């Protein structure tokens, strides 16, 4: 009877192992990313400023590009990976 109880406990421990995820750990975050930069260019006499930035963490990356001309008209493009 005692052995049966112990065997049941052992089987219980084995069944509890079903919660295990993997043998290599999943990191909380694959490194955070942030940063950006800008440059200016003149096309047909009009000056444009383009800025780019990247942010996100884990497996998500948000890349934003913004172009602004002298009249402050802005075009933004965002891509998420």
């Amino acid at each position: 009877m005692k052995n049966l109880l112990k065997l049941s406990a052992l089987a219980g421990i084995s069944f509890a192992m079903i919660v295990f995820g993997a043998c290599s750990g999943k990191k909380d975050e694959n490194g955070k990313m942030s940063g950006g930069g800008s440059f200016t260019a003149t096309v047909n006499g009009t000056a444009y400023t383009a800025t780019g930035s990247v942010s996100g963490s884990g497996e998500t990356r948000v890349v934003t590009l913004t172009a602004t001309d002298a009249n402050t008209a802005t075009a933004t493009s965002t891509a998420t990976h």
Partner: protein
Amino acid sequence: MHPELFTLFGFPVRAYGAFMTLAHLAGIALFLRTLRGRELGPYIDLMIATVIAGLVGARLGYALVHRDEFTNPWRLLALDRGGLAFFGGLALAFPAFCLVLRRHRLPIFATADLVSPIVAFSLGLLRIGCFLQGCCYGAPTELPWAVVYGDAHGEVPPALSRMPLHPTQLYEAAFLFALSCALFRARARAPGHVQENFAPGSLATAFILAYASYRFVMDFLRADLERGFLGLDWLAPTQAAALVALLAVPVAIRKIRA
């Protein structure tokens, strides 16, 4: 490959966890079959102690090598997020194994010989779980049997998921099943007790040396290991642990025997 097998009461059952359970249950069943005709009580104590010590050791061993992932100590308990290391498990399971056997006045080396082929078999089953889960994955290769994980990449990073990779988990499973068969056959040739054909502990030593040699050589094909251990850019922590096992186990066994 197939990281989530099914859902149970709303919880996703992952391949690694399912095969971990399967490997332990198969190991328990095989050990009980081996023990037919013997008093089971001490051996059940042995299984409980070594399984618990092995799990704790495997988790601590992984945390020791990947300290950056464990800045929050509670992360140690997040078992669903993965992280186990075989050699860490061995480092705690072996002392627990010796302590329980000594307490019950059972022979350490002869019992280790009984257990070794079963451990090899269970570990082989576990590696199939690794393959389905996508952990322990290999480096890119052009070999015809390479595998591409695709969308169901599990632990394989997205950058590698579209590339053909060495199925290192299946290489290891095949090696462990072959090793298990060889150890079972060697044990079967010595009816009753292993000592009749081999010095006690021979099969266990053969298992540890064969597995450590395999890991040292074949872990070069793995892409999931962080290299640069001890300042050597080619060395992974598992390979260092395998080298320690290769050097320390024969010395330790000789000393214990003496």
